[in-house]
Every structure is written in C-alpha cells, then in structure tokens.
C-alpha cells in the first residue's frame, strides 16, 4: 500500500505548471491537486505516474471570487471553502448544501473542486453541479487557453476532453437569479460514500409556474448531465406532488443506466426516479 516512486515537481506559477505539463505529460506525468482520489489510486498501484506536478504551491489558484455574472473557482480551491455560503443568494446556499455530501470533513480540507471535475468520477457531486448549472471551464496549456462548456468537457467514466498537456485552471459557475429555487438529493449506502444516484434541480417560479428548469442527474450514467425530458415536464407547470412524480418518471426513462455487480439497470432507474422527485420536493421546503 505504498505509492510507486515518482518525481515531484513544484511549480510556483501557472506558466510553470503548463511548461512542466508540456515536458512531463508525455513521460507519464500528471497534475497533483488535493490528491484525495489520486493518492489512494497510487497506493493501490492502479496508477503509477512517473512525474507529479504538484500545484499546491501555485500562487493565485486559490482564488474564489465573483467575476461579472459568474463565480470563478481556481484550481486549488478546496471543497471545505464551500462549507459556509461563499456568496449571498441561491448559488452560495446550493454549494454549501451539496458540499456536505462530498466524502468526509478531512477529505474536504484537501480535495479540490477543479480536481473533482478533472477526475470525472460519474458519482462526483461537483460534476453534477457543473453539468446542471452549465459551467464553463478554463483550460490552459503552452499552446494557449481555451474555454470549454461542461458538456464538451465530461466525456465518460473518469474521462474528459483535456489533452495530456492541458491543465484545468478554473471553473466558472453562472450566478443564479435571486428567486432561483433549488433542490439536491443524493442516495448512497453510507455517509460520505459514492453516490449511487443524485439529482440537482433549479428553476424559477413566474406567475406560479416553473420556468428555466434545470434537472441534472449524477451517479447513474457514465457522466453527470442535464435531462431535457424531465425539464420539459416541469417547464410551464405549477409545482405539485404529481408533477414531481412525472418528472422523476421522465428522468428514469431518459437515462442509460450504469450497471455493476450490485446495481441492475432497473434498480438504477428506480433510484433516479426517487432522487429526482426528492430533489424537487426539497426545492419547495
């Protein structure tokens, strides 16, 4: 249970990070951020990177601030930063509610928001938040910067569109209008364990009917994503228990469920049906 040998690089600036990546990524190098997923995988020797580019000393990457109409989250902003609402309004409350579901307190002191996105575990709460809120991701390399929509970033199980020399430097979450309602519900077997399904919903009420509904599902498919079929059920309707059941049904039907030894497709659909409905119920509380 000891990681294999590697060479550690400690850049101080983002320029040094991308230079180091350009040099060492082809030699089996990768980024070390919080390390709360990578280091266990290394302990099991499922990963044996030859080089780790440790970004924990890089100036400025801990920046967490509002820029215009979005919240900017730097690459070494840790989960624990969201324990208390980081901004007034629904987005800060939403992030503070969701973060309590991520692993455990000591893990949240080290693990990072952007690291979760780059790791792209289908069960990741932050991937679900990013997908539901249409996050934009700032990706840097020696070849230049690009901004990627989350739908083009998350590609599958622990798979993203990052090239090997690219570094996820920042995530941008759009601010939510003050009257946004939200609800989140996650099902897992133990506190802090991986989500077997999770739902995040946001919407606004205009003249008593739902508008701008966003329904995201995580932990059920190979990546977190919005489910337009469920959003269509909600938009233009007044919230009601029957409507929430119908939205859950639409989400359960729309997904392509992941299966594993413990979880059949049918069970996963049933979980999605339940977490969607419960997230919607929480949005009214």
């Amino acid at each position, binding site marked *: 249970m000891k990681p294999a040998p590697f060479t*550690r690089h400690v850049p101080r600036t983002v320029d040094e990070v991308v230079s180091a990546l350009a040099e060492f990524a082809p030699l089996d190098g990768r980024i070390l951020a919080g390390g709360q997923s990578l280091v*266990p995988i290394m302990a099991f020797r499922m990963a044996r990177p030859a080089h780790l580019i440790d970004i924990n000393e890089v100036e400025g990457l801990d920046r967490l601030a509002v820029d215009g109409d979005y919240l900017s989250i730097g690459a070494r902003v840790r989960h624990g930063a969201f324990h208390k609402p980081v901004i007034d309004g629904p987005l800060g409350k939403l992030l503070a509610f969701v973060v309590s579901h991520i692993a455990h307190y000591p893990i949240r002191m080290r693990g990072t928001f952007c690291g979760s996105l780059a790791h792209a575990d289908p069960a990741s709460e932050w991937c679900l938040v990013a997908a539901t809120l249409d996050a934009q991701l700032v990706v840097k390399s020696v070849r230049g910067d690009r901004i990627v929509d989350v739908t083009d970033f998350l590609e599958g199980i622990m798979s993203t569109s990052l090239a090997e020399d690219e570094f996820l430097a920042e995530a941008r979450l759009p601010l939510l209008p003050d009257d946004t309602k939200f609800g989140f519900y996650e099902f897992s077997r133990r506190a802090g364990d991986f989500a077997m399904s999770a739902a995040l919903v946001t919407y606004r009420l205009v003249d008593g009917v739902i508008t701008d509904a966003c329904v995201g599902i995580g932990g059920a498919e190979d990546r977190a994503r919005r489910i337009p079929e469920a959003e269509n059920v909600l938009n233009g309707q007044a919230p009601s228990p029957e409507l929430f059941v119908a939205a859950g049904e639409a989400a359960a039907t729309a997904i392509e469920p992941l299966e594993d030894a413990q979880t059949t497709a049918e069970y996963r659909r049933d979980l999605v049906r339940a977490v969607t409905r419960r997230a919607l119920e929480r949005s009214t509380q």
Partner: protein
Amino acid sequence: MSDKTDITLTINGQSHAIRVESRRTLADAIREDCGQTGTHIGCEHGVCGACTVLVNGEPVRSCLMFAQQADGKQIRTVEGLADGDEMHPMQRAFMENHGLQCGFCTPGFLMLAVGVLEREPDISDHDLIDVLSSNLCRCTGYQNIIKAVRAAAVEMRQS
C-alpha cells in the same frame, strides 16, 4: 527516481530534519522518520481516518498527503494534546465516557474532533455526528465517542 529531498517537519512545535523520497506519505514520515508513533496507520488509502493529524490547524488524512508537501507547515499529532501530565479535555472526555476500547482509532478521532472544534467551536450536535462519521471505530459502536466529543465540546467552549 528515488532521489531523496531534505525537508523539515514541525511536529508539535519540534523540528525534525529528515530526508525522504517524494512518495513517502506524511503518515509514514511522522512514524518512521520522526519516531512519533502515536499517529496510527490503518487502511493507507484515506478511508479509516486512523492517521488523521492537523496540518496548519486543518484535520487531514496523513496517508493521503506526501511528507514533502508538509515541509515547513505546522503539524499537530496526538502526542501534542496533553500539557505535561495534564490531559487535553478531549482525552479526558474519551476516558470518562469510555470513548475507546482497543484504542487503535483513538488518536485519529482525537485529532479530528480537536481540529474541528478549534475551527468551529459552535458546531451543532447534528453536524458533529456527521464529522465523526469520517473515521472508523470497530469497537465502541460510536455512541460513547459521540458522548465524549459532546462533553469535551462544552468544556472547550468554556475555556
């Protein structure tokens, strides 16, 4: 690849000049290189919490951090809780409330609870239970740990 680097770990205020490979975890360095064996190692992949220590005041899994990453930072371990012969209120509360049986998980629980209560003295009982779910104990069934931490929390708030 196995080049070693000179670092200084400051554990409970005492400096330890050591020379470690990049792959050396903080947990192993604390125990093997600095001889501070109060910190226990259980699962070595971040699940059990036995190796929890405070780094710059934050409770972290020392098996998921590399020793070189803690160079120059303030580390606190279970050896630093007591003041001479005077136990820390958290240690005394664990004893008085039977918060341990075999004692293997205890250093991790003590550092977790002390770290969280120093950062958030007014944390609710409900949130404390969530915090204590971070670490594994296979003896007590947790009820006496919860009792101990709640008792110590009251005392720590008064002091």
